[in-house]
């Protein structure tokens, strides 16, 4: 979804604040949130992609003003409500597609704008890049987050020139490499 979580290249978030000697171990409740999440996922109440998507679906102001574990807690609460704490018993397709691309291939990302979960950042849609390496196959988050399938696809590390992503005023000699599922990509002549 085109939510505020998808923040690569956005402006206005301010300076990076580095807290010296910041606490490593969080507050007690955060540890419990961690434990609850692990237990819920182990029980099959929801999967990782659903969990991420639940965070993305938080109201924008809440997302942006919550701490990391506050977002987790809110996401877990939403998921427990929505699932009514019932584990779904379902038989989902588990397909696996053949790899279409090899390192060196020129690709272009699709202009996908699903309202559901995806891991194709907005800043990299309709952009041309080169396949650096092939990985996976990994569960496709776009369907796994919505319990539509357990399909797996190859994932490609694709390198984009900064100018392709940000225009001619981009910093010189810069690239961004992004890991993208096969269905996010098409072959490109250029």
């Amino acid at each position, binding site marked *: 979804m085109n939510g505020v979580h998808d923040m690569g290249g956005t402006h206005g978030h301010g300076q990076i*604040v580095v807290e010296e000697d910041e606490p490593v171990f969080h507050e007690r409740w955060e540890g419990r949130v961690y434990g609850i999440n692990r237990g819920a996922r182990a029980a099959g109440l929801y999967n990782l992609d659903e969990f991420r998507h639940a965070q993305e679906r938080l109201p924008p102001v809440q997302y942006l003003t919550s701490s990391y574990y506050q977002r987790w807690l809110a996401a877990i609460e939403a998921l427990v409500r929505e699932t009514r704490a019932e584990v779904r018993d379902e038989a989902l397709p588990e397909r696996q597609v053949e790899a279409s691309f090899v390192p060196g291939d020129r690709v272009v990302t699709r202009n996908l704008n699903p309202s559901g979960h995806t891991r194709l950042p907005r800043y990299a849609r309709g952009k041309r890049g080169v396949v650096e390496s092939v990985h996976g196959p990994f569960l496709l988050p776009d369907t796994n987050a919505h319990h539509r399938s357990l399909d797996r696809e190859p994932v490609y590390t694709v390198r984009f020139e900064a100018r392709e992503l940000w225009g001619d005023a981009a910093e010189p000699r*810069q690239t961004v490499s992004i890991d993208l599922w096969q269905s996010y990509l098409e072959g490109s002549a250029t």
Partner: protein
Amino acid sequence: MSDDHGHHPHAPSDLEARTLALESLLVEKGLLTSEAVDAVVTSFEQDIGPLRGARAVARAWLDPDFKARLLAAPKDALTELGISEHQVEELVVVENTPAVHNVIVCTLCSCYPWAVLGLPPTWYKSAPYRSRVVIEPRAVLREMGLELPDDLDVRVWDSSADIRYLVLPERPEGTDGWDAEQLASIVTRDTMIGVAKPTVPAGVG
């Protein structure tokens, strides 16, 4: 905390389970509060985890064959060092050279290689870094204290899938004759994310 974005939930190790059990029982019996434990830990805390990545980097600096293995098959190389709790689907190590500087981010959430770097710092998980490092990495690094020359390539890696990244920093000058432990001591978490370079403390060497 363990891996925030591992794909497979796992049962605690034996040592973890025993530790949890003891704290659970002691708290239940009113002999201890978890807050008291927190207070002790907070006062002594230091980064967890980065030591693993640091050991791998130090070994790579000392042993070119190990470095080649670390770059080609990182999880196997880490296992050689006795590091096997990987909890990640796949790890990729990217090497800094005089021609290339690498920096890691997860713009969509905060994916981070916990198994070798410990807990991610708050700034890594926060909006300013996530939004800016993909569009103006040199400016971000400058703000964070790292000035890069114009004549090198900056590669930003956005961990959007199940692959986790670790930067292998360049070995700095002034470390000749150092052993693995000394070298590991200057490899900080930030150098393995790519927002800093290892430095030799003044008066050492």
